[in-house]
């Protein structure tokens, strides 16, 4: 099948980007979107041109590395599907696909379709964990957890941190991501002791990063490849409200967002180099 890919090309954060159209004449309908880009990149390399930079890792929809906008929809037109799992048969022959990276102040551009999502890492580091003593693994079923509770925790834990929620949100809000992490740990007994502090810490870091606010419109959950429900955002709001009410002191600290990269390595590598 024939496709025209209109892809956002940008050398690095400092330079201006623009769309470049590439016509592909023999796209295999069974290829995934990323494999389609692989084929395009091979032809670009053969021609001596710069290949399109995009993130990917597992290619089975569970790692959260890949993701970009296709025709204005995060991860493309198929619901609950990452771009690595999106097969080309879902597009019409001769269609033009506009491919551009996630756009958010909190996700600064790195190159082409690659953005810096360390803001998510900082949110996780501010409370997305349980503090447990190390040692032997506890026996199974020492904690009694109801099936419905474990199902809800699992649904929230399915978040792969790809950033599609931020990309799809008109306000570039990270509420669905942060809510998923807070819900996943907050409703399980292992996460209960730190529930209040976790909510305050993660919400504080989310609000320190340049994300927008949630307006409860639900674009995030529509774009989410794991279909995380909007319910997690209300769980975050509730835990934050309760935590803010019950807190005894301002013990929560946040980390200033950083968008630079270390060049302290002895290897002379310029992180902004394009090739």
């Amino acid at each position, binding site marked *: 099948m024939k496709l025209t890919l209109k892809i956002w090309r940008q050398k690095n954060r400092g330079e201006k980007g623009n769309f470049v159209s590439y016509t592909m004449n023999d796209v295999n309908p069974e290829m995934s979107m990323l494999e389609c880009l692989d084929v395009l990149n091979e032809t670009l390399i053969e021609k001596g041109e710069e290949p399109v930079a995009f993130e990917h890792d597992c290619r089975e929809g569970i790692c959260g590395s890949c993701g970009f906008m296709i025709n204005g929809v995060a991860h493309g037109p198929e619901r609950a599907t990452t771009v690595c799992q999106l097969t080309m048969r879902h597009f019409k022959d001769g269609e033009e696909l506009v491919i551009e990276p996630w756009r958010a102040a909190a996700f600064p551009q790195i190159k082409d379709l690659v953005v810096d999502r360390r803001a998510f890492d900082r949110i996780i580091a501010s409370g997305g964990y349980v503090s447990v003593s190390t040692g032997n693994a506890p026996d199974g079923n020492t904690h009694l957890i109801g099936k419905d509770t474990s199902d809800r925790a699992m649904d929230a834990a399915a978040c792969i941190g790809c950033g599609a929620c931020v990309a799809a949100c008109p306000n570039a809000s990270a509420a669905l991501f942060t809510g998923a992490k807070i819900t996943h740990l907050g409703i399980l007994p292992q996460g209960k002791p730190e529930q209040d502090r976790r909510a305050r810490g993660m919400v504080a870091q*989310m609000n320190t990063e340049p994300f927008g*606010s949630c307006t409860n419109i639900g674009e995030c959950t529509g774009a989410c490849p794991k279909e995380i429900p909007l319910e997690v955002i209300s769980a975050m709001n509730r835990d934050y409200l309760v935590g803010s009410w019950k807190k005894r002191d301002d013990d929560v600290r*946040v980390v200033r967002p950083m968008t630079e990269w270390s060049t302290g390595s002895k290897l002379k590598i310029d992180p902004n180099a394009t090739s």
Partner: protein
Amino acid sequence: MSTAAVTPHENRAPNFWQSTNGKKVVMAVTGAIMFLFIIGHVAGNLQIFEGPAKLNAYGHFLHSIGELLWPVRIVLLLCVGLHITATVQLAMRNKAARPVGYSRKQAINSSYASRTMYWSGPIVLAFIIFHLLQFTAGYIHPGSQFIEGDVYHNVVAGFQVWWVSVWYIIAVSLLGFHLRHGLWSMFQSIGYNHPRHTPLLKKAAFVIALLITLGYISIPISVLAGFIK
């Protein structure tokens, strides 16, 4: 640039009002209070169908409880002020959160009402200012003389001017859109969402918004159609 560029620096955590979540809670609570006023106001207004004596007596009653009238007005003004302050601050933050926009963006999961809150809100505010100047203060009263205390006359004479009625109908319809999203969204903001109850809440928000809108616009339509003279 060196490793210093990626050394973590601690900042003070944003407090409740500084956090987006806290502002949304404030918006939910103030919105709920303003919703109570809207219910009371439509119920009071519909007395116009019971004739001039009834409506004027109701207007007189509201003014006779002077000690209560001003506290209520102050609470409502405070709610309007907080609701707008939070919205403006959040809207500016949200605009800054996406400095480079998409060349193409498709809405796949949100309602029209929810996406137009930034439009329906300010237009309704402009309408409320006009509305207060017309029917409470009597500064603007096109087509007739404003008579202090004769509510029935003021309403009927006011709505007989076609553009006043059209402006009223448009503004109240936008208020309906605003409520259709706001009425269930306030529960989400204060942390209530349930897979069984929230869909019901969304339906209820639609029905209540529709009833309120119809209740309000029945008055100018009745005046224009000549049912109320």
